[in-house]
């Protein structure tokens, strides 16, 4: 069957346990889902389809499934990853400090050209904030990554985070293609066989809250 999309990006979420990675990607931690079959068994990965500059992009997004607790995130998990969202919790200083360790882990195990982004999550809980926005921004500058504060709970900046990362990967890929004279090598670029697009606000409800 002809491919119906232009790019395919594999994205990962990384960070300490409890920072809300799962909330950024999945909703099943919500109380109202306690009774659901899905919340019990958990979700491995998602496929989401977005449109950027008229290009249809498939995102395959993986959560760590709690492996971070055992520090067992290694090469296998990073394989093929083109983008990594590093998540800390603004109400948890330690999770912020550990971003440096996660970046070291990425440098050790992931592809050297993987696109990275740092997210300070739970910005809806201002009264318990331990990490200022400025420190987050400073860290991002230090590592040359984009930065956003998000609230999975309030559905703030979650869309933006995924779109920003996807846009950065796409730009990098297009630059590489131009440099390589159009020869596609190990990129997410695929041949276009047709298009079927529809308008929708993607990730619009992608938060920890039910509709």
């Amino acid at each position, binding site marked *: 069957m002809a491919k119906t999309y232009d790019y395919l990006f594999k994205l990962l979420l990384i960070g300490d346990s409890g920072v809300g990675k799962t909330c950024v990607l999945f909703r099943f931690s919500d109380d109202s889902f306690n009774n659901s079959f899905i919340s019990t068994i958990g979700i*491995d990965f998602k*496929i989401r389809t977005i449109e950027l500059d008229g290009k249809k992009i498939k995102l395959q997004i993986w959560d760590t*499934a709690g492996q971070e607790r055992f520090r067992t995130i290694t090469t296998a998990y990073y394989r093929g990853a083109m983008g990594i969202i590093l998540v800390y919790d603004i109400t948890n200083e330690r999770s912020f400090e550990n971003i440096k360790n996660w970046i070291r882990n990425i440098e050790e195990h992931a592809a050297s050209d993987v696109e990275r982004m740092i997210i300070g999550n739970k910005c809806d809980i201002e009264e318990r904030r331990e990490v200022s926005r400025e420190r987050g921004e400073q860290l991002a500058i230090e590592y040359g990554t984009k930065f956003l504060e998000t609230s999975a709970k309030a559905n703030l900046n979650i869309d933006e985070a995924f779109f920003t990362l996807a846009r950065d990967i796409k730009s990098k890929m297009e630059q590489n293609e131009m440099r390589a004279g159009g020869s596609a090598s190990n990129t997410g670029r695929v041949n276009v066989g047709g298009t079927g697009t529809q308008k929708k606000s993607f990730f619009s409800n992608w938060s920890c809250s039910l509709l």
Partner: protein
Amino acid sequence: MSSSNHSQPSVSTESSTIQTETGEVQARTNEDTLICKECKTVVILKNMTTEFLNEERDLPLPRQKKGIDHTQTEPVRGYFGVKDIFAFENVGFTRSSEGKRYLVCGECEQGPVGFVDTLTEMNYVTPERLAVQQTTNSPVEN
């Protein structure tokens, strides 16, 4: 629980109203774009699937009753199948539960709306747990 063995595509008529006990697989694409019943997100665009599995399978109920130690299921008949996971627009794949993996809405995680056949690696979604996207020319129904 019924076995997950696929019956061979048996001798059949072209009719789409076969009601055998064993069920069967037909080459068939989905005529409609299928969306989530809850949040209306597109799960799969039309003309993406390659087969129709006319079989009854037990799917877990989206809502489980409290205080019951086993998974409550109901038999659901009829699934569109496709091998390529990227044929889907928005879908989630669950972790394995008792050797089975399920498909859910990629946005709100309503489901299961289908399952993965671990032997054939085919991915199946059922119209029974999804809604049909109305075309813009037809009267709006929601």
